[in-house]
């Protein structure tokens, strides 16, 4: 049944291609065709049978999320936090060095430190806020 394959393909469009994705799509298409076929045998009109099969199967969003969760999600958020922490520490270390080397009499490195500290803080609290939702 062409309509079912089209429906599943359109739903999975946003997920990047992978072996796993095509396997799961294939399995879902087969299941949907199977139950639509049974409904048609029971005397339902073709279109009704397809619609009912799709509704009965349930919302595919959960499966999409699982497939997407494999590449993105937690790991990515954590690595951008580490990048921010290490990056800001390097910048702070550099300003401390310049401060002590060229003008040891004036403690000015605190000002750029305050500025650059916003970087990891933003990432951290944005991640926290997104997790909370």
């Amino acid at each position, binding site marked *: 049944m062409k309509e079912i394959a089209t429906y599943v393909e359109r739903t999975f469009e946003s997920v990047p291609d992978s072996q796993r994705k095509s396997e*799961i799509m294939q399995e879902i298409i*087969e299941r949907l065709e*199977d139950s639509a076929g049974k409904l048609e045998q029971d005397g339902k009109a073709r279109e009704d049978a397809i619609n009912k099969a799709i509704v*009965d*199967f*349930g919302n595919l969003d*959960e*499966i999409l999320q*699982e*497939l997407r969760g494999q590449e993105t999600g937690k790991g990515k958020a954590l690595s951008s936090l580490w990048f921010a922490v290490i990056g800001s520490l390097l910048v702070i270390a550099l300003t401390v060095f310049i401060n002590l080397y060229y003008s040891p009499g004036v403690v000015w490195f605190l000002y750029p430190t305050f500025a650059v500290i916003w970087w990891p803080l933003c990432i951290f609290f944005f991640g926290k806020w997104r997790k909370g939702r």
Partner: protein
Amino acid sequence: MVSSDLLRGHLETILLRLIGETDRYGYELFSEIDGRAGGRLVVKEATLYAVLQRLERQGYITSYQGDVSGGSKRRYYHMTPLGKANLEQGIREWHEAQEIINIFLRGNIQ
């Protein structure tokens, strides 16, 4: 018919149990749940496949392509030792939850 919210948290454990008995494929799990619960536990197939994906990603089950039957290849799921440990923990947690809830909800209402 029990609301799915109450049972949702235990769906992973239920699936691990069924896969632990013998290797099973997606629709087999669906009909097994329906049959054993006598239709009282309603799980959408989409939810089932999502949970299977999650279990596989967490390393609790592995899957392999089974023999061709009726024109289509079936994907069978097999429980790993890690999955077995998780199943045992899930069963323990369920017993404990039961005891705790019983403390409050058992007996007649005054």
